[in-house]
């Protein structure tokens, strides 16, 4: 078996190697004439190597950089350094994206006599990148949608209005209360009052971590709304810190009955309801009597 070192490195064999390389390689002189191009390079522009010799490189490759100050041949030959980049070349009526790297070509005396350029077709890579990006974007979009959905869900879940007794609604607030949530909570309380004819609404703020003047104002507004509907609002779960904040903020809680715990509020409301029921009984007796009177008068 022959060792690679035993092979004669003559010109023919070198050109064989160069033609076997799958990326495009070409050499130009200082006047942009193509001195040499390998098979892969010529194939990429839709030509045979023989068609490209002694032609100007800008006529063959037709990139947007050709014949401008960004011409990679001019850059490497004038500055004596390597240059890399990406561009597109015009092949027929098609734009082919390529990645290129150029180096200055020097003779034995070290004088720059031209430029060697190596380029590869990156359309497949770009296509892959595009697909990956698309997938990423769709994934991101889906995730955003999920998050939005969850937020809505949380909003739904976090403002439950529960009827715990005939005529008593509770609104246990959990989490931060911004104006949007407060508005939703208020609307739901009002709707529930309209549906259930509840005389009492117990707002519990044990689960609200930060209570500031705004939150206090929101709760107060809910109480004002409940009052206009004809219900009374009780507030429970006011901790020492919350009490301090509310008193400092100067928000008056005049329309609200304050109770320490939910139990106290419930007991109070149930007692009140019972009292009213008794009154109502007496009152219907009275109304009945009134009606009888009226009938007798007629």
């Amino acid at each position, binding site marked *: 078996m022959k060792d690679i070192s035993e092979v004669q490195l003559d010109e023919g064999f070198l050109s064989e190697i160069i033609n076997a390389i799958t990326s495009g390689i070409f050499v130009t002189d200082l006047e942009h004439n193509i001195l040499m191009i390998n098979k892969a390079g010529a194939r990429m522009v839709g030509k045979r190597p023989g068609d490209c010799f002694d032609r100007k490189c800008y006529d063959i490759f037709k990139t947007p950089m050709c014949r401008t100050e960004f011409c990679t041949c001019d850059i490497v030959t004038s500055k004596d350094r390597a240059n890399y980049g990406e561009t597109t070349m015009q092949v027929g009526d098609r734009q082919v994206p390529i990645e290129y790297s150029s180096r200055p070509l020097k003779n034995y005396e070290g004088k720059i006599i031209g430029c060697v350029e190596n380029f590869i077709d990156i359309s497949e890579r770009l296509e892959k990148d595009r697909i990956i990006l698309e997938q990423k974007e769709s994934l991101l979009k889906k995730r955003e949608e999920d998050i939005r959905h969850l937020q809505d869900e949380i909003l739904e879940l976090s403002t439950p209005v529960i009827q715990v007794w005939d005529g008593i609604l509770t609104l246990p607030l959990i989490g931060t209360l911004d104006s949007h949530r407060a508005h939703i909570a208020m*609307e739901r309380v*009002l*709707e529930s*009052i*309209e549906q259930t*004819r*509840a*005389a009492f609404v117990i707002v519990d703020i044990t689960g609200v971590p930060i209570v500031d003047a705004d939150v206090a104002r929101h709760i107060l*507004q809910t109480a*004002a*709304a409940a*009052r*206009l*509907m*004809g*219900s009374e609002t009780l507030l429970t779960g006011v901790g020492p810190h919350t009490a301090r904040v509310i008193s400092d903020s100067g928000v008056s809680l005049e329309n609200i009955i304050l109770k320490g715990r939910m139990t106290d509020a419930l007991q109070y409301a149930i007692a009140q309801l019972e009292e*009213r029921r008794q*009154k*109502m009984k*007496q*009152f219907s007796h*009275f*109304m009945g009597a*009134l009606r009888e009177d009226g009938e007798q008068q007629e």
Partner: protein
Amino acid sequence: MQPFSLFSLGRVLLVSLEEDIDDAGIGELLTRVSSQVSGEAISGVIVDLHHFEVMDSHLARQLQALARMLRLLQARMVVVGLCVPVVMTLLDFGISLPEMEFALDVEQALVRLQEGKQAEGGRAP
């Protein structure tokens, strides 16, 4: 047709307003209610607004005027039948109607007036 109706329930007067009541109607309402309240020693007036789907600040002011007048005649005013959109509008305008009371329905309003009367009676010397 009259834009309001009055029902006398003993010492309580029930007033039901129609949505299309205008200034002239309000004026007539104030006259009729005031004469009836002072003439028949009425202690409470229930104003039923369940016909109203919308309310403007002008009507809110008229209601305030009615409440103030009733206070001068020593009668209480309880409003019933405000629907959710009306309540939201009033809040958005910052109208809190402090001079009147509110109840869920006429029944509750009657109970409320009863409650108050006893409490007042208890306080009286």
